[in-house]
């Protein structure tokens, strides 16, 4: 049975769609059902995706009108990988902060990974034990990996000095 059918049978609310990519199978599911889907994939004795390899997100608001939160799962016993993506619909110019249920209860690895997705994409994870910025500093405004965050924008914590216009005085005062 295809993995999407198995997920649909266990979690009907997930409405999974399955596709193939060069590294294996990709399943896209509804964001509300992601917690149940992940729990099913981890706890099902046949599938047993017991490890979360990585968790990240992609800002596809321009082309597909959504954010994808990407879970890369690994089963040690079957030596198999699966990419699960939660599709969160959001319009291109909408800078709202969407939210998903956390996966920290399933894998401890999700703790820092979800903090990074929050930091970089502004996607909240409900139930996370301490969702705060991890790579950027607390005072930072915005989420830099969103496509609408300008790449050249600077937010220095201390005022920046232009070394050409305002050089340090040399030792003899010139």
């Amino acid at each position, binding site marked *: 049975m295809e993995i999407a059918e198995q997920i649909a049978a266990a979690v009907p609310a997930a409405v999974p769609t399955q596709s193939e*990519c060069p590294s294996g199978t990709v399943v896209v599911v509804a964001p509300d059902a992601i917690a149940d889907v992940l729990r099913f994939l981890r706890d099902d004795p046949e599938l047993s995706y017991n*490890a979360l390899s990585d968790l990240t997100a992609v*800002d596809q608001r321009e082309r597909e009108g959504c954010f994808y939160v990407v879970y*890369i799962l690994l089963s040690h016993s079957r030596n198999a990988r699966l990419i699960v993506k939660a599709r969160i619909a959001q319009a291109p110019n909408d800078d709202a902060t969407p939210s998903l249920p956390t996966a920290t209860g399933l894998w*401890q690895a999700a703790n820092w990974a979800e903090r990074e997705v929050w930091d970089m994409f502004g996607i909240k994870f409900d139930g996370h034990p301490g969702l705060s910025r991890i790579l950027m500093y607390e005072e930072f405004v915005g989420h*830099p*990996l969103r496509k609408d965050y300008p*790449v050249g924008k600077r937010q220095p914590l201390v005022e920046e000095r232009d070394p050409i216009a305002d050089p340090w005085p040399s030792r003899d005062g010139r």
Partner: protein
Amino acid sequence: MADAPHTVDPKSSPEIASDGFSEIMELQMGPSHPATHGTIKFNLRLDGETIVGCETEIGYLHRGFEKMCEQGTWTQCIPYTDRLNYASPIINNFIFVEAAERLLAITPPERCSYIRVLLSELSRIGDHLTCLGMGAAEMGAVTVGFFMNEARELIYNLMQAATGARLTVSHGRIGGLARDLPEDFEQQARAAMAKTQETLDDCERLLERNRIFIDRMAGIAVLTPERAISLGLTGPMLRSTGVKRDLRKDEPYMVYDRFDFEVPVGTKGDNFDRFSVRFEEMRQSMRIVDQAFKSMPEGPVSIDDPTIVLPQKKDVYENIEGLMAHFKLVIEGIRVPVGEVYFAGEGGNGEVGFYLVSDGSGRPFRVRVRPPCFYGMSAVSEMVTGHAIADLVATFGMVNMIGGECDR
């Protein structure tokens, strides 16, 4: 402490230490600390010398790797990938190009794959020498630190001979390599390996019955296999707990399935096992290097496709096809078909994975790197809680955090 209220968090104080007389002390270790090679900060809560709470702060070396990769062409990402990891840059380099090659559905020539394996394994030895040398020096075994640094220097010289740079190698290309190995490379590498072998034997004799070293390492920061898997640990940190998982064996890429080598595993999952696993891995890497030289085929090192690989300079200057191919590759970049891929390889510290998304243009839409030490660092706080503050240094050394990779 009581008359300096600004130093004590009002929510957590007063908290009485286990002796009943003193308070829990808060100590900020880092971000620039001589014993933590890397900019990182530990917010510790100490009961005497015992750590009762540890919060790890990373991000001091964040350069926006993933954002920068979205700005240029696929080829322009390659130099960024070296800068992720200063201990084994060439492994990250090759894993990135392997991931992109999977999106393009191309296979590099055999000789290229053999050279990638060879240079990756040399680099892995260099990575472990860095980690173990530093780790041993922090335990007081400074001699081992110097010996290993000397051996690492030999590896750097080999890298320089093969790629032209010691650290910023940028040697991988999508569809091949920047250039073939120099003529006398085998001779140089075999001499360096013989010397490294001697160094390893010396270091083993210095450490294997060293009471101080073993007391500081054995039984410290123990992890169970279940916990290690849940924390997302990979590579030597996972294998030290007894889980025999090595991507070179389990998900063979390049030509690793043609080599005969063992995957060393630990039994207890403590710092000593993490040290021993890495030590043994260096010997296994030397076996792979030896076999790679013996079975290296002749032939080209890049595929013959002008839409992917830059033409020879001679063609660029002397005929219009070469000039056009060069121009289109430099200005537009390699046209990677629409799609996504997650490809992971065995880096020095564990699973280095690239999740790439292409929108069909010459530029990557999204480049995500899975840094192994990011997950390693997230485990440090639970590993050190209950141990002495000095054990934090040993544990941190055996996680082998590379700031450039952890913070990207």
